[in-house]
């Protein structure tokens, strides 16, 4: 926080949506300002209008969305009234923007160096040689390994984190006064996210750029924000210095949002049963790709000799980043994928060696809840049919299955009279509840939950997690909980296993593992959770 003048000052901005949208305005009467060397975070859930704000500043709104009020003062001129030619001069040079998905933000047919050089060729008169030099310097600045090779590489040849660094390099090429970052780390792994956040803060401090950082994650806010703006449904609900808003939120919505972020502190450990309901022993799954005429076959050990046990009634969390093999392991548990080796003992039977026919019967004892609430329900079946499908297949008469399905609806917190609707008529959180009901319909012994809350807004997330905890207590469920988010795991898991590159690097009681991580990777993972102290203890009660 500093006393320097505002670089960008937005006064009463309103953005109108076309007829037929779910509300009249994407943004209503938004006023905020960004000073020269601070990071301003804009926080909100989906539909809050935060991305619309970024697009409005850059005047990159879609055709049918228009600005119908307010001003955006940048360097003493109103961006809202500027001509297209004037805006083009600003874009990339004075105001730069980076987006969420680094893979799709770069043209797949042109090299990284080419695309960064474009910023120079559009705005400056530098020679090719000079531009090449600057591009390499930029890539070194963002700490890309081997800038020379990176400049000649195509986007698909780099990792997600490297691509985002390249995008940042492209944005900072001409030393813009304002950098708008629209959820730049949301699509990245948690360790990569930590690195990129650090990079952004470092660059900001060195170049004294003003940064407008859009995010939905309060942990990220705690990590890098100087000031915070909280948005809901297109309006600003609260703004102020980060420390104040995080520790003493005033508006009810802010308090609700902060309370919904799962803290990293694990709840006190419960007593675990001695009886093991699920035993995974030495399970491996290897993929071989390519290898035409014996040339360069690529061997990937997705799951490498994994052994875990799940006590009855407990929740085992499997935590890892993308590529760790956790999803493959989850699919091995329900035999969507066949493991190459090992055994999975459930209720005394080995699921790995079971023949397909028997498997169809036995699969009722282990059921799965999926990540994507939109793809996990068949859009052409009614909700109640989706839930009743399982029992019907296993012999329950249709009428009774439907009746039981409606009871399950009530159990998961949905209105049983809504059972005859189709999936698209439900919200994301409600669809996850339907998915849960479907999984529970067969009264399984074990529930495998594959990132069940990752695709949900933070407030909905909290509700679904609460529901899971409630059901666990009521039905005595044993759960295998897959997630990449340590904070979520801390909330609901009794035991936790950390997975990296197909191997379990550490496992144990959740509380202990989080308090005293042994393996360096676990420590790195814990350190990457954005927000530091905020992540560990913040108000979890909205009141």
């Amino acid at each position, binding site marked *: 926080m500093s006393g320097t003048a505002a670089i960008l000052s937005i006064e009463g901005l309103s953005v109108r949506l076309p007829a037929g949208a779910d509300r009249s305005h994407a943004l209503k009467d938004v006023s905020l300002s960004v000073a020269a060397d601070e990071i301003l975070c804009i926080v909100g859930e989906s539909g809050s209008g935060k991305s619309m704000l970024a697009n409005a500043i*850059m005047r*990159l709104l879609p055709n049918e969305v228009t600005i119908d009020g307010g001003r955006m003062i940048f360097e003493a001129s109103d961006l809202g009234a500027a001509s297209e030619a004037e805006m*083009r*001069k*600003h*874009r*990339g*040079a004075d105001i*730069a*923007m980076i*987006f969420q*998905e680094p893979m*799709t*933000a*770069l*043209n*797949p*047919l*042109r090299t990284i160096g080419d695309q960064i050089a*474009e*910023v120079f060729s*559009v*705005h400056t008169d530098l020679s090719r040689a000079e531009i090449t030099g600057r591009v390499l310097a930029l890539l070194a600045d963002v700490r890309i390994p081997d800038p020379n090779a990176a400049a000649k590489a*195509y986007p*698909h040849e780099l990792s997600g984190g490297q691509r985002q660094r390249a*995008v940042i390099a*492209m944005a900072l090429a001409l030393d813009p006064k304002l950098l708008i970052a629209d959820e730049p780390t949301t699509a990245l792994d948690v360790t990569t996210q930590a690195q990129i956040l650090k990079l952004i803060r470092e660059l900001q401090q060195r170049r004294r750029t003003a940064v407008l950082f859009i995010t939905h994650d309060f942990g990220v806010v705690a990590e890098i924000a100087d000031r915070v703006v909280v948005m809901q449904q297109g309006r600003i609900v609260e703004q102020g210095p980060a420390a104040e808003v995080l520790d003493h939120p005033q508006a009810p919505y802010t308090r609700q949002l902060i309370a919904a972020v799962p803290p990293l502190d694990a709840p006190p450990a419960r007593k675990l049963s001695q009886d093991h309901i699920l035993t995974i022993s030495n399970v491996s799954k290897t993929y071989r*790709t*390519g290898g*035409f005429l014996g040339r360069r076959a*690529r061997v990937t050990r997705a799951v490498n000799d994994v052994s875990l046990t799940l006590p009855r009634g407990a929740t085992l969390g499997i935590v890892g980043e993308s590529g760790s093999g956790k999803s493959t392991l989850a699919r091995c548990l329900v035999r969507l994928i066949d493991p190459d080796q090992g055994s999975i003992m459930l209720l005394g039977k080995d699921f790995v060696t079971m023949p397909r026919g028997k498997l169809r019967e036995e699969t009722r004892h282990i059921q799965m809840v999926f990540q994507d609430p939109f793809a996990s329900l068949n859009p052409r079946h009614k909700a109640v049919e989706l839930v009743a499908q399982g029992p019907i297949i296993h012999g329950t008469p249709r009428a009774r299955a439907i009746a039981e399905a409606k009871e399950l609806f009530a159990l998961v917190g949905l209105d049983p009279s809504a059972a005859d609707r189709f999936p698209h008529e439900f919200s994301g959180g409600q669809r996850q509840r339907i998915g849960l009901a479907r999984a529970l319909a067969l009264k399984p012994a074990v529930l495998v939950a594959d990132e069940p809350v990752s695709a949900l807004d933070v407030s909905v997330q909290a509700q679904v997690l609460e529901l899971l905890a409630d059901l666990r207590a009521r039905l005595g469920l044993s759960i295998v909980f897959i997630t990449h988010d340590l904070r979520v795991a801390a909330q609901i898991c009794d035991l936790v296993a950390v997975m990296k590159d197909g191997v379990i690097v550490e496992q144990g009681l959740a509380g202990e593992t989080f308090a005293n991580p042994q393996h360096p990777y676990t420590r790195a993972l814990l350190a990457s959770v954005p927000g530091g102290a905020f992540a560990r203890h913040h108000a979890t009660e909205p009141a």
Partner: protein
Amino acid sequence: MRILSLAGRRLAASIPTLILILIGVFLLLQFAPGDTVDAMMAQMGGGDAATARELRHFYGLDVSIPVQLGNYLWHLVRLDLGFSAIYGKPVATVILERLPPTLLLMISALSFAFFFGLVFGVIAARRVNRWPDTLISTLGLIFYATPSFWFGLMAIVVFSIYLQWLPAGGFEDIGAAQSGIWRIFDIARHLLLPALTLGLIFLAIYLRIMRASMLEVLNLDYVRTARAKGLDETGVIIRHVLRNALLPMVTLIGLQAGTMLGGSVVVESVFSLPGLGRLAYESVVQRDLNTLLGLVFVSALLVIAVNFIVDLVYARLDPRITVES
């Protein structure tokens, strides 16, 4: 190197397809009423059973079908396509004679269709939902619905009969034996209407695909990034959209190669061009099954060759394609 190994791999994969086609059509032709010898005898004006038997033996038609198939494939490997009873020449010779007009026709039709399809597709996409787009898209639909042979006939009526600007058919003026640049000009005059006719429906297809592809690419994230860098619309289109939008078009050329070859049958008939298409028609009417089979082989080869070139071009344009994908 990557490009060559990639295309080479695809080529190798086409060989079983080729064999499948040949075996399939060969077996299919066995069901035809009457064989080559019957056609020959009909041409000769009749003959007795003994002559028929001798001829059958000479042409190897009296052995069992699997043996015949084996013989045929064996000859094929040595590029011997058999003998055409109707034309009195080896099938390979007949086909080679008729190849140039068809190739010329296809290349000109393809160039015309691709170039104008691209140009109009880009214009339609740039002015989407405004009058240039509506006009171009409507014309495209009408061209797509127009039967090519009918368009050819109407073109002849307008340009050859009423306006007398262009010849009504044939490949070149046989009377005037020209050479060099005049011959080329003469052939071009003769090919103008046929190329237009054949290319018309493909123009409509390429136009629609280019327009759709452009619209889709214009909605992609990296176009947004390009705008955020300060590029103007023309720069965005040329440097980020065109090359990416071209990819489906290139694939389409390969997919449509067979259809174009099929279309040449009708166009060559309408304009009396001495090409492969006309040859196919004549073989069917005159029951020259050897030639028909040879044509099937050559057509399949042509399609495979076109697809090979398309694969090369595509791999050159798109760096994401690797041997593994």
